Each structure stands twice: as structure tokens, then as C-alpha cells.
């Protein structure tokens, strides 16, 4: 006596759907491969683009505050968004304004801003143009007067320190390594800083490399009090720099600051308008690619299932004759589409992730960071699988409807 037969564990619709898939092995494998490739491409592409964008944003925000507050413009204040066609990356450090102006009542304003919801840290700085002179050499620089403890919370300058220190005690300055190279400066050297009306001599106490050319070539940090003197802004502050909790909500915070105080307030997104436009169009084109990959995956699923429905006419007829409802037949084929979608997208998501990680780990910068940054988030994974599953269901809808509407008599007669 052979082993006692067991009842199938699955409900009817699942049992049929899975058995049909197993029966059409070659077709099933083919379409799985198609979905795997499609979803793999999508995941890989998205990981790459997200990684790239996140990297660009991180680098941008590594030297910039999330929100920059300055004195209101001389002319009547223009409403957001301004028709500014995009300002340079580090515009707040290389002020455009010809006349430097202090933010009126900046202490109270800074305290007020610090208390706003969503605001993390606040630092008041004095910045303006100056020339750095050493011997015969002279360079145009951006003078940045900061209180290091406060400024450090906005831009992690310590992490960029190459030599010396960044304590900025009275009479000390910190310069970028590029500027130091151009002027032949070393820690402990003397550096003359000149503005239109004043000049003073500082000791170079620290060198930093930010990794952004403009900063490394032009930034010169001095104590805030010294900058106030050099720029003739005694007791003043030209900018209040702000960090926020959610960088993508920076514009809202900037707007609420602008609403509350008589100041000009810009988020990093508004300052880097061109960059944001670039990122957005990059996202848009990757969305288009993803869309078309999905569409071709959908067509693949639909055509394979259509073939399967045609091949299974007879079986569908007999199932109907046994009393299987139309809706049940519909479900059997929808489930096949869904299962193909889930399985293919899981495989594809794994393949895409694997490829992305391989890419990130293969090509490394000297410092060990990947040349091609990738970003794989659980949400990318979940979105890819969900989208492909829904695509599978949608793609299966048409063949499934055909199967459900099949005339059982016709199907049986053709035996």
C-alpha cells in the first residue's frame, strides 16, 4: 500500500494557478527572466541615481547651511520665487551685494529663529569680500567671521581640518589648502587681509580641505569680531545660517522665517536652483525609463498569459463544466500574473541590488569611498516589488478576462 494520499493544501484558485505555472515551465521561466531583468534594471538605475543625487546634496550641504538669512534687499522685496536663474553653489559665502549690510537686530532674530519648529541650529556670521596678501601674491577671498563653536554646528569645519587648529583665537585665521598653496602659506605664517578701507595681519592657525574648489581656494575664516572690524560692521552680522531637521522642508522653514522677520531668507534649494533643476530633470528622465521598462514587462506578462489561456481552453472549459465560476477562472489567471510579478520582482530587486553593491564596492576612491555612490533603501525595494506586482496583475487582467469569458461548450467541443 503506497503512502496515504494527502489533500492539497492550497485553496482551489491558488492550486490551479501555481500548477498551471509549473506546467508551463519554459514560458514561466522566460517571463520570470524578463521581469527579473526589467526590475533589476529599474532597481540598479534607481540605486545609482538616488546615490548620486544624495551624494551631490550631501556635498552641497557639507559647506552650506540649510537656510541663509540676510538683510532685506535695498529695493522693494521681491516675492518668492525670484526670477534668479540660479546662483553659484556657494553664493552665501561670496556675497553678491555691493553694499554689505548687517541684519538689523540680528541677536533677537537669531534667538527667535532658533526657537522656530523644525530649526536645529543657528549661527550668525559676518562675511564679505577681501584680498589676501602675502609678499607679492594677492588673491580675492571671501572673508568669513565666525564664532567657531557656533559655526561648527552648521558646517562641520573640524572634519575638514588638515593641519593646525580651528579655534580662531584673536589674531588667528584659517584658510583652505588651495589658497595656502597659491600663496605659499603654512601654519604659523603671517597673512595680511585687506578690505576697501582697512587691513589687518593674522597668523595662519589652521588649514582645511573641504573638497569643494571654491571653498578651498577662497575661504578665509577669522574671528567674528575681526571680520566686523575689517568690514566696518561693528557689532553686526551679515548672515544668520540655519540648519533644519528635514532638509527637504528647508524652503518651508525659510518662508516662515521670511514671514516673521524683515529679512531675506533662502533655503539651500532656492540658493542652488540650477542644481535642483538638474536633479529634478535627472529624476524625471529616470522615471521615464522606469515607466517604459515596466510597460515592456507588462506586455511580456500579458502576452505569455494570453498564450497560456489559449493553450488551456479545454481545461478552462472542463473546469467551468464542473461548476467553476467565471470569477474563479479570472482569479486563477490574475494570481498567475501576481505571482510572476512578485517572484520576478523579488529576484530582480535582489539582482539589481547585488549589481549596485558590486558596482559600489569594486571602484573605490583612495579614501575607500565608492566612486559610484549607490543608495539602496528598503523603500526602493518595497516600491519595486509592489509596482511589479501591480503591473503583473494589471497585465494579467486582459488574458484573465478572456479566460473567464471563454465559452465552455466551444472549449469542450474543440477536444
Amino acid at each position: 500500500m503506497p503512502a496515504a494520499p494527502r489533500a492539497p493544501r492550497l485553496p482551489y484558485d491558488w492550486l490551479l494557478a501555481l500548477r498551471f505555472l509549473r506546467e508551463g515551465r519554459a514560458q514561466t521561466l522566460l517571463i520570470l527572466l524578463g521581469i527579473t531583468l526589467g526590475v533589476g534594471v529599474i532597481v540598479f538605475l534607481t540605486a545609482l541615481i538616488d546615490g548620486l543625487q544624495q551624494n551631490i546634496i550631501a556635498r552641497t550641504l557639507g559647506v552650506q547651511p540649510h537656510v541663509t538669512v540676510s538683510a532685506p534687499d535695498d529695493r522693494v522685496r521681491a516675492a518668492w520665487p525670484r526670477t534668479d536663474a540660479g546662483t553659484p553653489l556657494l553664493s552665501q559665502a561670496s556675497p553678491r551685494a555691493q553694499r554689505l549690510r548687517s541684519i538689523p537686530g540680528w541677536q533677537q532674530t537669531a534667538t527667535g529663529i532658533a526657537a522656530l519648529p523644525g530649526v536645529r541650529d543657528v549661527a550668525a556670521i559676518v562675511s564679505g569680500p577681501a584680498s589676501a596678501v602675502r609678499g607679492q601674491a594677492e588673491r580675492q577671498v571671501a572673508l568669513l567671521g565666525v564664532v567657531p563653536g557656533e559655526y561648527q554646528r552648521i558646517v562641520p569645519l573640524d572634519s575638514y581640518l588638515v593641519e593646525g587648529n580651528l579655534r580662531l583665537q584673536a589674531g588667528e585665521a584659517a584658510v583652505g589648502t588651495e589658497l595656502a598653496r597659491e600663496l605659499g602659506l603654512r601654519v604659523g605664517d603671517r597673512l595680511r587681509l585687506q578690505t576697501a578701507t582697512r587691513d589687518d595681519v593674522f597668523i595662519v592657525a589652521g588649514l582645511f580641505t573641504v573638497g569643494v574648489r571654491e571653498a578651498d581656494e577662497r575661504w578665509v575664516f577669522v574671528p567674528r569680531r575681526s571680520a566686523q572690524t575689517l568690514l566696518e560692521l561693528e557689532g553686526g552680522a551679515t548672515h544668520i545660517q540655519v540648519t533644519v531637521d528635514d532638509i527637504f522642508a528647508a524652503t518651508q522653514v525659510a518662508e516662515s522665517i521670511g514671514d516673521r522677520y524683515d529679512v531675506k531668507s533662502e533655503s539651500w534649494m532656492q540658493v542652488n536652483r540650477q542644481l535642483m533643476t538638474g536633479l529634478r530633470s535627472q529624476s524625471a528622465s529616470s522615471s521615464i525609463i522606469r515607466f517604459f521598462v515596466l510597460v515592456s514587462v507588462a506586455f511580456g506578462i500579458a502576452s505569455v498569459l494570453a498564450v497560456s489561456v489559449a493553450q488551456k481552453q479545454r481545461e478552462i472549459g472542463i473546469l467551468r463544466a464542473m461548476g467553476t465560476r467565471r470569477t474563479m477562472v479570472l482569479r486563477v489567471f490574475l494570481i498567475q500574473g501576481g505571482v510572476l510579478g512578485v517572484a520576478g520582482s523579488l529576484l530582480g530587486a535582489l539582482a539589481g541590488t547585488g549589481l549596485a553593491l558590486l558596482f559600489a564596492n569594486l571602484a573605490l576612491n583612495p579614501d575607500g569611498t565608492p566612486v559610484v555612490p549607490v543608495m539602496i533603501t528598503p523603500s526602493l525595494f518595497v516600491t519595486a516589488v509592489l509596482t511589479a506586482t501591480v503591473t503583473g496583475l494589471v497585465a494579467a487582467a486582459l488574458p484573465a478576462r478572456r479566460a473567464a469569458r471563454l465559452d465552455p461548450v466551444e472549449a469542450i467541443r474543440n477536444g
Partner: protein
Amino acid sequence: MADGVPVLALKGVRHTYGQGDTATEVLHGIDLAVHPGEFTALIGPSGSGKSTLLNLIGLLEQPTHGEILIDGAPTATLDDNGRSALRNRALGFVFQFHHLLPAFSALENVLMPTLVNGGRAGAGSVAEAMALLEAVGLGDLHGRRPAQLSGGQQQRVAIARALASRPRLLLADEPTGNLDTHTADDIFALFRRINREQGLAFLVVTHDPRLAARCDRVVQLVDGNIVADHRQGQTP
């Protein structure tokens, strides 16, 4: 035997295929009643409308005119779900070509009608299906796929499947049509045994006069009309 409500009643059933110029009426007003436990042969020349009649009775198609009652209940107003449920509960089908599902074992094929009903098969329904397979002499072969069975064995599985939902009426369209005489006799004997043991009514389309002679009743269809309907003494 003709007492009580008939399991099947046809009243003035007409059926037309095609529309407009190509419309052809293939059944011209059929009146027929089949009573519980009755074993009826439906005979007639090819093209006389036997299969059409069986498909109408099987609720696979709707007649153009007339009424079909199953267990006294009219069927014309039922929607697809209602017809499917009735098909599953009251009717069993056996076709000339077995129409088993190739991807499923013999046992799973027999379980199908139960699955359609309840969604899942419990241990009880497996035992029942095994009993049916044993009744048709295939208990040992329950794990085989249709392709691993002979024509006669396949037809036996199809019969076991038709019996699985405990129907009131079993419809068979030339069930022995592509079997050799010996196997055909076996299948027919099996039909008669089930009919005797379970009191299940049979309506069997056949070309074989030897088999028709072994039925309780013979209905003859010619060109879409019933031309003869007589009961005969049962031969053992």
C-alpha cells in the same frame, strides 16, 4: 419509478445557432422528463442535436426558447454564479474525450469538483475521492498523471470525478466513443453499477446499439425532434 419531481424537465426547448441569415434551429421544441434513478440512452444520427441538448441540460448554454428545470427549479433566470453552483451541485459530466487536467494527479482531478465548492479539500473529501477511485478500480493509481493512464483508465477517472460532488444527474456524451468494445463494456457496466447502488439518474448519448439496449429507456432524436421514447425491461 416515474413518481415525484423529475431531476430534469425540459419544456418546449428550442435552440438556434447563428443569427440573421445564418440562423439555424437545431432543436425544435423538446419536451422531456428524467426521473431520479432513471438510466436513459439518448440516440440519434450524427448532427441530430444530441450534444446540443446535453450542453443545454448541463447549463453550459441557454436555450433560445423553452424551460429547463433541475430538480423542479427553473434555471432561466440564474446568473453565471447560480448556474455554476447548480452545475457543480446537481450535475456530473463525462465527455467522449476525458478532459482531465494533465497537470494534476488522478486523485487531484477527482477532488476538483469538491475544491470548486469548498475552496479547500479536507481529509474527509480525500477519503471520499479515494473511495470513488477504488469504486472505478483505480485506487492504486491515484498518484498518476492522466498521461500515465490508459484511455479506459482516464475515462474511469473522469467518471469518478463526475461523481465527486454527488450529483443528481450524470450527463455523458459518447463516453465510450473512443474506447475499444471491451473497455466500453466495462465502463458501461460501471455506469449501471453506480446507477443501481446510488440511485443516480443517467442520461447517456451513445451510438452503440448494444449499449442502448442495456438502458431502462431509449430516447431517439432525429433532426432536432424526439421521434421515439420508450422504456424497456432492464437487462442485467
